[in-house]
């Protein structure tokens, strides 16, 4: 896909504090990219720089091939959806949505028609004459969305737009936004600290940590093939164990843990024996049995605790050296604490993380 937005070696300091460090990122037209990271990781700052609310200390931001560093916000043609909606309280819903069109000098009749269509799109046609204060949070966020889309901006920027909504509404809005993205072919940059939100909606996820992008890839890539320990731990839950590569044979490597235990893991790319690595094993990949299994890796351990969580069964495993967490299917049998079990997983269920 053609590159549409490019961050070229962006650095941003707030005083002496470096919030974004020498960052490169390309976004294609029509792509939905999530910037995911803990608070203070620089993701929002990057979005604010793209919107023009902040300017980079160094580096260039290019949109459609031309640098926008010196273009003021109001001429960047980007729709921004804020976490706190930022609706104008003294205007009705219809006036809020008409605002960007009026600022662009769109004819009155045309404005009315486009406002009507935008309201239809977010299913709020009946509320055009209400004031934002008379709407629920979810409705307000839909108005904010309609307002950011009605002028057909080149890019839509969303700064944790669903953060203030309750879980059920948030999940509904996630699907709605994803649907809009597909239907309208929008280019969306979406900031969130909620990893499941990022995985649900995005074409690609950029995982931020301390002002850098740790990894960028499809939701499947960042979840299944975390490149760094931070990504493995931040996205989803994982079991991380430390070890040393003992041998590499084709697509598999044997890692010896500190306890002397050996685990065989799939490996991609070059890996030299002798180096220290981390192994990431997703809890849902672990199977439990009371007898040793056929799998490549099989650890003898003991159930410390078992919690029924509705959609899955969460089992805390404990042996002398390696605490593990396993997520089992809700229909699997429950092991009472103290049961001796074997935790089994294939080599493909492990992921080697280079230091």
């Amino acid at each position: 896909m053609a590159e549409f937005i490019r961050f070229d070696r962006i650095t941003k300091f707030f005083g002496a504090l470096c919030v974004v460090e020498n960052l490169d990122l390309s976004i294609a037209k029509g792509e939905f990219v999530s910037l995911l990271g803990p608070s203070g990781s620089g993701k929002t700052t990057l979005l604010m720089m793209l919107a023009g609310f902040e300017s980079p200390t160094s580096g260039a931001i290019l949109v459609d091939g031309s640098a926008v560093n010196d273009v003021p916000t109001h001429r960047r043609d980007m729709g921004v959806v804020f976490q706190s909606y930022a609706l104008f309280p003294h205007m009705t819903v219809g006036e809020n949505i008409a605002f960007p069109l009026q600022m662009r000098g769109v004819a009155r009749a045309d404005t009315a028609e486009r406002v009507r269509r935008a309201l239809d799109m977010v299913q709020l046609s009946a509320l055009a004459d209400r004031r934002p204060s008379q709407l629920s949070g979810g409705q307000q966020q839909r108005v904010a969305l309609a307002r950011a889309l009605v002028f057909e901006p080149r890019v839509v920027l969303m700064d944790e737009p669903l953060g203030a909504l309750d879980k059920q509404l948030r999940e509904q809005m996630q699907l709605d936004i994803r649907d809009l993205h597909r239907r309208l072919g929008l280019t969306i940059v979406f900031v969130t600290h909620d990893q499941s939100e990022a995985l649900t909606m995005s074409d690609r996820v950029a995982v931020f940590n301390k002002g850098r992008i740790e990894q960028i890839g499809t939701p499947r890539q960042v979840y299944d093939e975390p490149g760094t320990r931070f990504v493995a731990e931040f996205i989803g839950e994982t079991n991380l164990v430390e070890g040393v590569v003992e041998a590499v044979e084709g697509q598999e490597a044997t890692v010896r843990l500190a306890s002397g235990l050996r685990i065989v893991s799939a490996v991609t790319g070059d890996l030299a024996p002798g180096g220290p690595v981390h192994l990431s094993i997703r809890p849902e990949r672990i199977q439990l049995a009371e007898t040793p299994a056929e799998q490549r890796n099989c650890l003898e351990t003991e159930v410390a605790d078992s919690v029924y969580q509705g959609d899955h069964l969460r089992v805390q495993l404990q042996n002398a050296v390696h605490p593990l967490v396993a997520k089992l299917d809700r229909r699997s049998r429950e092991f009472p604490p103290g049961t001796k079990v074997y935790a089994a997983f294939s080599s493909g269920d492990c992921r080697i993380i280079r230091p």
Partner: protein
Amino acid sequence: MSGSPTRTGRSLLLLAPLFAFLVAFFVWPLFSMVSQSVSDTAVLRLLPHSADVLAAWDRLSPPSPAMQAALMEDLRAVDDAQALGDMVRRLNSAQSGFRTLMSKTTTALADTDDPPADLVSIDKRWQKPEFWLAIANALSPLTDRNLLAAVDLGRDAQGAIEHLPPDESVNRVILVRTFWISALVTLACICIGYPYAMIAASLGGWKRDLMLAAVLLPLWTSLLVRTAAWFILLQEQGLINDLLQWLRLTDGPVPLIFNRTGVIIAMTHVLLPFMVLPIYSTLITIPGNLMPAAASLGAHPFRAFLRVLLPLSLRGVASGSLLVFISAIGYYITPALIGGPGDQMISSIIAFYAIGSANWGMAGALGVVLLVATLLLYSVYARLSAEEPGRS
């Protein structure tokens, strides 16, 4: 619930000082001001018998002997020269010629050796109904003369409202001037106060505190001290003129004192806090992301200000303007010290009537005019702010 009456009584007792204060310093002064402005007992007090007789008079026919006798009796009974003077002044203002007529009459009545038979024999003017009409009109204990005079109106012989002749019409000029100066001061306060409040609201920490303290500090200084300070600053040899000349912006001293410019500068400074604080307090309640949102939607900063920030802070501007304007129309010290003769405001006239000429009726009437203007402004403001649609 047996304890509730005592509880009510106790809470009323707690509120009693407040009620006493309100009555002593708010209700009573207002009441006495209004009653002074409409009461008119200077004539009635001295002429009780004439009042009885004149009540039966048809107001057209020549005076009857009974009326003359009653008036003579009343006049003979007067022993208070000051009260007599008040009455004569009051009657003379209604019918010119009364002063000479009265002094001639009282002199004749005082002559006990040769008591006059009736008033007409003292002076032929006592035959004319106009003079009796003036007395009859002045006998009512209530009058609108002062209130009408406060806005340069009066009643003619038939009792219809008319404009006073131009040489007596100063109040309206001064009222208009008062409102004009107050409006200019309000405007100047908006022009300086709005940006000031905007900057203060956009800053944080000690910078904001410093800016607010700079506004509040003058409030803790006496008005007289502040005005006196301006008196020094604005002089021809004052700091401001010295600076302007040192910067070679002017050749000679700019006249800043004893004129309108000085009055407006000093009043704006004194009243600025009342503009800055309400605007500031509305500005800080406006969410900080509305202006960025407007910018992202394509609004130039100036249009964003006009469409978003200004409408949302209009309530603050309105309350600030109301405070400043209402305070300004009552200003006395600043125009008196810094203004010229052409810059005196209505309060100076009130002070003149109250202190200078002891005409409490006129002082009260002008006070009522000010009070009515203030109440009107406030009701307009209340109406406007009530119509403002609900905000989140």
